[in-house]
């Protein structure tokens, strides 16, 4: 079970004196992360990304740029794909967060994960958890997505290794599979 309890987001400096003056103190936050309810104290400044990685030790979600430019930190927030580096954890009391660690059921990979393996949708793998989470979000938004639409609708996820054509093929295959399953 994931349980926080420390007072500050790891990696953050202790709040300056001004914090005391303005009455800032850690906030108690409840999140449902990959189906588990977790309660933790967070620094109001902590991003959702740092909270997942440093506090909950869910390091599958990657930090590529920390400024919204790469998509490596994509997670599902209440079912929708978002960038976890561009939001503060404290803003999401009671929300459900799904990270790449939450996709597989035991040893059974999620169909999108399976498709990335089958179609060689990565090289170094750094962008992959973000790509997969974004693809899961895309298929929820648009189950009938066509191959031609995929590049634009996945344009929020950059891949330094340029595995783009295999990523597109993987998502097309996963879309096909999930439609057959209907």
């Amino acid at each position: 079970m994931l349980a926080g309890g420390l007072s500050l987001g790891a990696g953050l400096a202790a709040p300056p004196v001004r914090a005391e003056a303005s009455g800032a103190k850690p906030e108690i936050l409840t999140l449902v992360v990959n189906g588990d309810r977790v309660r933790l104290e967070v620094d109001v400044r902590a991003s959702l990304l740092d909270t997942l990685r440093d506090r909950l030790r869910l390091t599958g979600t990657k930090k590529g740029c920390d400024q919204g430019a790469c998509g490596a930190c994509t997670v599902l927030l209440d079912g929708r794909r978002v960038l976890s580096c561009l939001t503060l954890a404290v803003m999401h009391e009671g929300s459900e967060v799904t990270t790449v660690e939450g996709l597989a059921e035991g040893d059974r990979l999620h169909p999108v994960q399976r498709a990335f393996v089958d179609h060689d949708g990565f090289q170094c793998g750094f962008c992959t958890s973000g790509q997969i989470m974004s693809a899961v979000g895309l298929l929820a938004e648009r189950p009938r997505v066509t191959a031609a639409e995929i590049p634009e609708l996945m344009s929020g996820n950059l891949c330094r290794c340029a595995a783009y054509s295999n990523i597109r093929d993987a998502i097309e295959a996963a879309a096909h599979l999930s439609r057959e399953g209907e």
Partner: protein
Amino acid sequence: MDTFEYKRPGTVREALRLIATHPDAEIIAGGTDLVTLLRDRVRTPARLVDINGLPLDGLRWSRDGVRIGALCRNAVDDPRLAAAYPVLVRALRSGASPQIRNRATFGGNLLQGVRCPYFRLPEFACGRREPGTGCAAIEGDGRLLGIFGTSAACIAVHPSDCAVALLALDATVVVEGARGTRRIPVGDLHRLPGDTPHVEHALRDGELVVAVEVPASPFAARSTYVKFRERASYAFALASAAVAVHSERGVVRDARVCLGGVAPKPWRAHTAESALRGRRLDAAAIEAAAEAATAGAAPRPDNAYKVELVRGVVRRALTELLVK
């Protein structure tokens, strides 16, 4: 990042009180811009007011048009909106990325900070960020910066695509404050820098954007948005055009030609609109409008290419309307 007090009001009234009672309060909506500004210490509020608990989302249709809540997300996917205001939905879809659009709100999009690289790096002088400190861009790299409406104090461009479309649609921003509700035409929301670049918009202290109203208009349905950028997607505009045309018996009665990525605010090209009025919308009229759209351009050597981009983007956008 300096710390701050975090507040999440449940009503507009409570939100207004929280903003009004603290001189250093800042609103956060989607957070897709403000979180980076906080992290980079461009903004250092002492109180952060999270407005996501307010009932300000959704679209409300009436005979007069549509009212879009300030918290409505940029990913808005509504067939009626796409049919009534194609220029708006195209502008939204051309902005940022799907993940960002899922969080970004209408209010935040309109009030997002400029993307001038010096504005975002506190080690550089920037009078928009800190009044009276000068402008690193004037002597620096201005390739991505403005050719219209700039001043000796600031040459930044407003980055919003959505705002350019809203200008072409004669939209109004609905604002609430301690003294009640006001309506600001979207073209008056952003300020030209003049010698006070830090006065970025027309909101008074303590005011909150609650909605955007887009009127029903004869030209809204025949409208489009074209955006030129450095790559096919996920990039800010180098130059963009929101155009709308209303013709009767083949003759243009009224038109809107608005430009993005080239001025400190969404830029209305009145001369291009005049060039179209009273004419048939054909290749010659489009050429005249494209040329007229560059009237008043004052480029620098490093961004003179934007003048040609303006011609090209207006031509491309109006040409798309020929088949509509």
